[in-house]
């Protein structure tokens, strides 16, 4: 890191009154529209989100946060996006936000294709289109070079795709599928319409029901190239860094919420005539959770700040944040169950909902092990 960047670091976390207001607005909205009962209701639906709430998110300008104003969005930065994601993570919001407003939007922004941006971004921004990004396949890999799905030119300027995509977020409800596939020239990005021939989508039964995933089968399915033929790798990596920063913030928000739950319970639950929070075994768990929550928050926002400031550390900090926040959230969610004891093991208690979200987000966009390896590489180790 350069000396200049260090000097600026203190300003990374200096949130403005506008930031505070954004956070307060989103928190109020989610308290009203995404209470636990609603989360549980949506978990049991196939779509996994409430269209009216989605429209309201769009009305608040949240679905178009990253979209430039000329394409109908708010033109905000990654830090604003993270504030929203942190709150959504707290509330376990069930909505295709990460898939559409983050992954699909970022993929388009970084694909180097102004025509595709003009065509797709306005719909993503106003929420009328739900997008998703289909990268992973049988191997679960997020690396462009591992893609096996094939793309063949159809001789008239278009392409057809053949292959299978797994673990695609909100695959069932997306009306714009951005699919990574391999042409003769290498990994390339394609747009696939929902009704295209040879396209089949089926839901996957996932551990975490608060975020839907599905399988996409492509059999000579017509598709439109986004960006250059064979040139998707760099743009995809950049988009995934933004998504990692956003997801890390979601994880930090979830981790802070489970810490609050654990602490609140430890203050009132009595055993042997004392609140269990007066025992050091519980205190030390909670203190360690706070250390992780605070560090996760710092790591996530540092990554978002690097994205907005376009420093050369975006990749390093995004991988650092994704690896650290994943483990911090998972550990805090597990400890929250432990602090709650028997009640924390029940279906009725929300502790398992956070534990399952922590588990799914840990793997999503690449595991902590994957991101630590990426971090080492990006540092030239």
């Amino acid at each position, binding site marked *: 890191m350069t000396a200049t960047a260090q000097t600026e670091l203190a300003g990374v976390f200096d949130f403005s009154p506008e930031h505070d207001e954004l956070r307060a607005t989103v928190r109020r909205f989610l308290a009203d529209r995404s209470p636990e009962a609603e989360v549980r209701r949506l978990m049991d639906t196939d779509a996994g989100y409430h269209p009216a709430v989605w429209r309201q998110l769009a009305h608040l300008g949240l679905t178009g946060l990253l979209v430039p104003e000329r394409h109908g969005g708010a033109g905000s930065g990654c830090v604003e996006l993270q504030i929203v994601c942190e709150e959504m993570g707290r509330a376990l919001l069930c909505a295709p936000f990460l898939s559409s407003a983050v992954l699909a939007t970022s993929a388009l922004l970084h694909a180097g294709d102004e025509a595709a941006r003009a065509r797709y971004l306005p719909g993503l921004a106003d929420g009328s289109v739900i997008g998703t990004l289909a990268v992973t396949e049988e191997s679960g890999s997020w690396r462009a070079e591992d893609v096996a799905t094939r793309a063949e030119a159809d001789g008239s300027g278009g392409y057809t795709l053949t292959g299978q995509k797994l673990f695609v977020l909100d695959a069932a409800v997306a009306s714009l599928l951005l699919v990574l596939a391999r042409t003769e020239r290498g990994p390339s990005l394609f747009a696939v319409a929902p009704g295209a021939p040879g396209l089949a989508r089926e839901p996957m039964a996932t551990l975490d029901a608060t975020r839907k995933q599905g399988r996409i089968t492509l059999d000579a399915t017509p598709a439109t190239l986004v960006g250059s033929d064979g040139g998707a790798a760099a743009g995809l990596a950049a988009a995934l860094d933004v998504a990692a920063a956003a997801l890390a913030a979601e994880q930090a928000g979830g981790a802070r919420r489970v810490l609050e739950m654990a602490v609140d319970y430890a203050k009132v639950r009595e055993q042997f005539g004392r609140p269990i929070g007066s025992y050091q075994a519980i205190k030390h768990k909670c203190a360690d959770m706070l250390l992780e929550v*605070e*560090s996760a928050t710092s790591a996530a926002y540092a990554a978002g700040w690097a994205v907005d400031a376009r420093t050369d550390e975006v990749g390093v900090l995004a991988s650092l944040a994704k690896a650290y926040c994943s483990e911090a959230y998972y550990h805090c969610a597990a400890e929250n169950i432990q602090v709650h004891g028997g009640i924390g093991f029940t279906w009725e208690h929300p502790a398992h909902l956070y534990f399952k979200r922590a588990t799914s987000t840990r793997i999503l966009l690449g595991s902590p092990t994957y991101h630590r390896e990426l971090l*080492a590489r990006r*540092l030239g180790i």
Partner: protein
Amino acid sequence: MGRTGLTGLAGLTAPPAESRLAAPADLPDRSALADRSGLAEAAFRTELRAFLGEHHPGPTPRERSVRLAFLRAWQGTLTDLGWVAPAWPRRWGGMGLPAALQAVYHREMALGRAPVPPTNAVGIVGPALLRDGTDAQRERYLRPMLRADELWCQGFSEPEAGSDLAALRTRAVLDGEAQDGVYRVTGRKIWSTNAPVAHRMLLLARTGTPESRSRGITCLVVDMSAPGVRVRPLRDMTGATVFAEVSLDDVVVPAADRIGAHDGGWRCARVTLGHERSTSLTAAALRYQRVVGDLVELARRRGATGDPAVRQELARAVTGARLLELNGARVLGRVLGGRDPGPVSSVNRLQHAEFEQWLHELAVRLLGADGLLDAADPRLGTDGRWVRGFLRTRGSTIGAGTSEMQRNTIAEKVLGLPADREET
């Protein structure tokens, strides 16, 4: 908090090198020292870099016999040229810097690899005097303390009062009036860092009833050459004798050397000054990043960077050091924005201690069979620093409050969990 100070002289492991002692500086009139508190950050940085460029004494020697003299000379240079105690008021020899410039100060000192001060004067003892001392005491003690002409130690912990500091039993009996009488002090203190070389001790003694806990403790300045003071150096597990057991047998301390009120000394154990801690932790975080860089070099030299398991560990090391920096920056951001430091400030010290311990464990694992060697074995060469640090950092999670006590404090003071003890 503030129990013992195991970190004192030990500092970070530094590569050996010949020392260039700073030339004895002239003693300028204190009032003539430049007031840098109003400088813009860039101008301040430029001045500080120029100062370091001209006066940096070179790497700190490892040899204990020359190390202390080297560090005292450096401390004299800093003091005489007005580059010491960034958070202290100018009236008492400090720089009187706003938080933003304190941060620049610590960062530049760390980046410039300036030697780490030889005493805890700026950290604990000085702030206690600044807050609770009289002007006469400040006049008498602070400047020699800053210059390291007079070295100080702390007499806090006792054999039977470690984490439970309020259980201390060293008695101080007031003979005469509270203003002009004397205290007669008898008892035993332990883990006093620098006691073998110290001129003075900041002592906590029992003046109330045995049951009075924190309400019956008085803070005194003890002259280490006074009759009845005996120092028995303790050899720590690294082989060094940095701290000592100090026995006091009817030692006479003038009441004029009491800091604060009779029975009101407990607060001396927990004083910190302004934002000194949050700004200086930033410097420590930068030093760790350098240490992690050296660790990666070690792995390279050992041909281990191709090992996927080692790569995971190195990534964790980088992450740990960066988190210290980022958490520090977050505190600083809040402070500079006029807000309280927030909960993140409370976890920083725990995180530092645990991290440096883990980091040296990793380094010794990377040494493989060479980790069996004594730090001084020639086969290790400069890598002896890792073995030394490995042993030294066992104390990181004990000194100045064990990690367990820090977790208690975090749980109770920040998270609001109920206390199960009296003072916390």
